[in-house]
């Protein structure tokens, strides 16, 4: 009993340190959330933390900011654009990468090893190295400022990591699977769709949320290939423009920013397991 009491007390500093770190981490986001619901006059007059002076008084909040940014400023449209960009830009590369990862993992062909080493090198090539030539070609083909253009760009840029992660998983599947399937006379396509894909669901889930978050949160690729036209601009591009034009209207900026965070946060909280698994597979192996 006494021993337990001592060990509980000796843990007080540890708990304190952890809780302080957690508070520091969460505080900036709380400020954003609270401010997005405060009337503009309040936001300009006092800090967001003052609402906690009357913790049971909820009259301070308003939905006006959200109405204004979503409808009038066009964040609703930008949200739709983000979805229209992100969904195909997630599905296409994963489809193409699954085929490639399977071939790299389980087929013999000349140049396999060299190609894969090039792929590993491409993992960290800065996108800046590619933008001017691709943009020139896009301009010639009329693909700059269009959704298909950015879908393809995100596909090309996403492939190295997706192939790499899927390869790590698929090459770890037991080899007997492939032997017994081919004895039964299955073709490689049948093995791919009936064996490899179903078994790879956990890895596919990881890369899906990876690529989804990457594309959804991307600013640079969208800026370069889509530009700032409200008809096609995603949330990140629109919000970074708002930071310039609505610099001190914090109630609007915070509401717009929160709209852009809702979907990633829901995905993150729901599928955190797969997200973590993907990160671990991508960085520490062997």
């Amino acid at each position, binding site marked *: 009993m006494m021993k337990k009491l001592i060990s509980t007390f000796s*843990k007080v500093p*540890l708990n304190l340190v*952890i809780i302080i770190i*957690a508070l520091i*981490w969460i505080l*900036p*986001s709380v*400020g*954003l959330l609270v401010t997005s619901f405060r009337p503009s006059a309040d936001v300009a007059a*006092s*800090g*967001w*933390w003052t609402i906690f002076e009357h913790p049971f008084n909820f009259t301070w909040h308003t939905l006006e900011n959200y109405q204004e940014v979503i409808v009038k400023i066009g964040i609703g449209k930008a949200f739709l654009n983000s979805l229209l960009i992100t969904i195909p830009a997630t599905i296409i590369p994963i489809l193409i*990468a699954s*085929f*490639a990862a399977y071939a790299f993992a*389980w087929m*013999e062909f000349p140049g*396999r090893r060299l*190609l*894969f080493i090039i792929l590993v*090198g*491409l*993992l*960290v*090539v*800065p996108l*800046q*190295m*590619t933008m*001017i030539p*691709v943009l020139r070609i896009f301009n010639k083909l009329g693909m700059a400022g269009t959704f298909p253009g950015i879908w*393809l760009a995100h596909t*090309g840029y996403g*492939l*190295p990591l997706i*192939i790499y992660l899927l390869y790590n998983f698929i*090459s770890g599947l037991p080899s007997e699977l492939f032997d017994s399937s081919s004895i039964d006379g299955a*073709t*490689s396509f049948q093995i791919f769709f009936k064996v490899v894909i179903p078994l790879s669901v956990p890895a596919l889930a990881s890369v899906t949320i990876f690529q989804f978050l990457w594309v959804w*949160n991307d*600013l*640079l690729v969208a800026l*370069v290939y889509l530009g700032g036209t409200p008809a096609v601009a995603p*949330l*990140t591009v629109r919000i*970074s423009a708002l*930071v310039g034009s609505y610099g001190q209207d914090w109630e609007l*900026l915070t509401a717009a*920013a929160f709209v852009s*965070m809702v979907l*990633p*946060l829901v*995905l993150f909280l729901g599928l955190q397991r797969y997200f*973590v698994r993907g*990160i*671990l597979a991508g*960085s*520490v192996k*062997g």
Partner: protein
Amino acid sequence: MRTRKITPWLYITPAVFLLTFFLIYPSIYTTYISLFNYNSEKFVGIKNYLYCFTNEIMLTSFRNNALWVIVFVPLTVFLGLIIAVLVDRVKYESIIKSLIFMPMAISFVGAGVIWKFVYDYRPASAAQTGILNAIRAALNLEPLPWLIQKPWLNNLGLIIVGVWIWTGFCMVILSASYKSIPRELLEAARVDGANEFKIFWKIILPLMKPTLAVVATTMIINVLKVFDIVYVMTNGNFNTEVIANRMYKEMFIFRNYGRASAIAVILLVLIIPMIIINIQRFREQEAIR
């Protein structure tokens, strides 16, 4: 497996084509046009590179990226490690880890808005609505223009935002590595009378060295490419410019494709050691397989 010779190529051709079109060919072409003038019509030799290494704003960008490496990398790795080790000892570990990890899910643009508000600055006569200056006001200190004050304060302010975002990433990887250390090893050391600090320095750190190296190289690559945070929060003003933002400006604002390409090539050259490390690590893994 029963496959025809052509089958593997059916599987990899779409990927190889897209990788060539979006990464390999453009990288070669960018290197080529970095030796030409702004519209790629006139050969200028190494003039664009000379510009990069003599222009004052470019030199500021190099200095700032160096500052990011020196401050950001140790901070994220160290904080990630400390948090991973500390939360391992409490029951509410997963909640805290989710909290610290959460910034990874949101965009750098969103994080930029969050932190611009934290750093908000008003004249001393007005009520401070940014939390940092409100704390200073409560302590009877003058408000600070966090994102404007040169040369260190504003750059450190931006770096802190990066740390806030990436520490969770480091923590997740380091936590997995820490948990794979056999507990008996730590218990044995405790029984032998080693204190917690000694255990940390003499046992935990050496065992986690390979993972720490992986995390640190990942962070270095991130830092060299840092763009969004700077673009959104200061756009490189007040001496906060970084290489990637400079490249964007040369490309899109000044339309100088020669200089923009030269900057991109320099960025690649800085990252090449990391590419080599990546390939070596891959080869080692393949050897183990």
